[in-house]
């Protein structure tokens, strides 16, 4: 699947800022979206990822003017949203479908009525409405629930109603804010297939917020990574996944790849497999930039030949190879046993055409941070040693703090375990 991109972006953010009154500093402001400039082209499936609270929903809600930028401008289908009259804006909105993070179903309308609502707004003929609703509900597997009210549905069923409703009028742009978060993997897969299908068949541009890296991998062609209101990295999905530059991106991608074992895992493996632990990065192709220059070369493609050639004994322990837009990338961890010098020789040969992370053996271990820093691979989640990680400033200091706070929580737990009886007595 290659997407033909016209030159003019269908959605364009130009130095967009959205501020709210600060919750902590009275009179101050909090920048939910901070100076974002971004182009989304017609026919894109554009993924947006980032920490919770990074500003993804706020950004996307500006595309259909549910939220207005504090400064900067948003241009959709060639027109600056700020310049549209009420009527023009409504006409534009009818061409934009939206799946809400919180579903926002009409609680007093049945499932069928919810899905029919945008069709009514679009003045469809009644019989077409009925047929369309039927087909959409059949697709999302809710035909039997057509006459239920939202309160009678499970979480995933609600989300599917939201999906059907957003797709009902064949929008030109589809905004999907965590559209599959409440769905099981199979249903997710099928919804993603549908999105891909409408994208390919009708050229619908899809803007996709998601926390599931696999979703981006599977269907997006472009991706933007947000952190603390800013877009810290954006580009072709393959480029970004294969060679993430920003620490935030690296962290995210690490969770998706599962290729590189984390520190704890390496330590654990060393106990069980005392030989030389080596992770080999797998990249099926060279990665080229837009100018056709090779940025990062293929890796790990000749490993089995080399194993065979050198006759080293190997055990497959851990790893993952996954496809990003149809090209396999990943990493595999082996234990090699045999004569030290022979293995060194083998590894040197392997490293010529591959990225290799050498963790050493149980007797002669290489420190995790050192080993990893040598390789061009996304830093895994647990690699907190990463000095490049930006200090989380107050504004974006919004993610789980991990170990330190955890210990404190435990302390409080302990404390409270002792005290709660007292607390109970003093009622």
């Amino acid at each position, binding site marked *: 699947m290659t997407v033909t991109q016209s030159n003019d972006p269908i959605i364009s953010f130009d130095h967009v800022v959205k501020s709210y009154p600060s919750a902590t500093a009275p009179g101050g402001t909090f920048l939910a979206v901070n100076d974002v400039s971004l182009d989304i082209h017609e026919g894109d499936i554009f993924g947006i990822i980032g920490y919770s609270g990074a500003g993804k929903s706020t950004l996307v809600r500006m595309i*259909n003017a*549910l939220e207005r930028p504090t400064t900067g401008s948003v241009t959709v289908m060639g027109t600056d949203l700020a310049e549209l009259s*009420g009527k023009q*804006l*409504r*006409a*534009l*909105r*009818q061409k*934009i479908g*939206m799946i*809400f993070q*919180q579903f*926002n*179903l*009409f*609680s*007093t*309308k049945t499932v069928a009525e919810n899905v029919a*609502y*945008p069709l*009514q*707004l679009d003045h469809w003929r009644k019989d077409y409405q009925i047929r369309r609703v039927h087909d959409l509900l059949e697709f999302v597997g809710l035909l039997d629930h057509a006459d239920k*009210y*939202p*309160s009678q549905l499970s979480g995933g069923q609600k989300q599917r109603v939201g999906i059907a409703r957003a797709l009902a*009028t064949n929008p030109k742009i589809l905004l999907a804010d965590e559209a599959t978060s409440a769905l099981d993997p199979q249903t997710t897969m099928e919804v993603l297939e549908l999105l891909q299908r409408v994208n390919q068949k009708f050229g619908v541009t899809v803007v996709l917020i998601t926390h599931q890296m696999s979703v981006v991998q599977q269907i997006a062609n472009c991706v933007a990574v947000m952190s603390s209101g800013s877009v810290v990295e954006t580009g072709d999905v393959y480029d970004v996944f294969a060679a993430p530059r920003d620490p935030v991106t690296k962290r995210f991608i690490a969770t998706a790849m599962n290729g590189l074992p984390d520190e704890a895992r390496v330590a654990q493996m060393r106990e069980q497999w005392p030989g030389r632990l080596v992770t080999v990065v797998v990249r099926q192709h060279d990665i080229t930039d837009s100018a056709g220059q090779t940025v990062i070369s293929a890796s790990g493609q000749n490993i089995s030949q080399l194993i065979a050639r050198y006759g080293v004994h190997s055990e497959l322990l851990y790893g993952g190879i996954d496809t990003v837009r149809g090209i396999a990338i990943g990493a595999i961890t082996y234990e090699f046993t045999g004569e030290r010098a022979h293995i060194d020789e083998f590894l040197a040969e392997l490293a010529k055409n591959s990225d290799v992370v050498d963790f050493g053996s149980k007797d002669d271990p290489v420190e995790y941070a050192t080993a990893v820093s040598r390789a061009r691979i996304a830093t895994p989640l647990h690699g907190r040693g990463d000095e490049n990680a930006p200090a989380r400033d107050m504004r974006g200091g919004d993610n789980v703090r991990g170990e330190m706070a955890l210990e404190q929580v435990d302390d409080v737990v302990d404390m409270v375990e002792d005290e709660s009886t007292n607390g109970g007595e003093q009622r």
Partner: protein
Amino acid sequence: MMVTLASRSDWSVLRPLLFQSVAQTLQMVFITLIIGGVLGLVLGVVLYGTRPGNLFENRVVYRVLDFLVNVIRPIPFIIFLAAMQPVTVSVIGTSIGTAAAIFPMCVMCTFATSRLVEQNLVPVDHGMIEAARAMGASTFTIIRTVLIPEALAPLILAYAFLFVGVLDMSAMAGYIGGGGLGNFAIAYGYQKFDQAVTWTAVVIMIVLVQVVQGVANAIAKRLLRR
């Protein structure tokens, strides 16, 4: 209180009057509820919509309407009835009788309804309104297809509440020769100390209210299945 049910009044005279009173009351209450109810719905929606942060936020319009409603509502109805007389004459042609009572009742009902409507729209979840906006619905469409349906159950209960209020107002119709059950109870029962007459009329009013509230409850319950 001790109710002496033996009536000293002549029921052969009162009976047709009672029937007439029932008819008058029904006429007054339903016409008022329909006209005042609809106008009050409109005014209430405007009050809600112009509230800061809402659909068509407009500080000036809200302030003015809010003030106006607060000017009209506290006027004791009997004084309002008198004050409206010139207007009533120019609109209805007369200031006495059932029809003349209905006009000021409608006006008062409009203002009272508007407050209840406003109040009941306030808790509607903004997410749904946003969903409709995102689909390109106009403000009017949103009001018609989302806002009101979502608040319908409490709105129905509010109208049942208003029914009693309007019935109460209609009792004052007697002041300007409008008749009605309330007047029947007061003029032929209460003022003549005839308990049987008083309570006959009151019981009919109670039955009316029970029926209306029962229907409202049933509808609200259906709507609350969500």
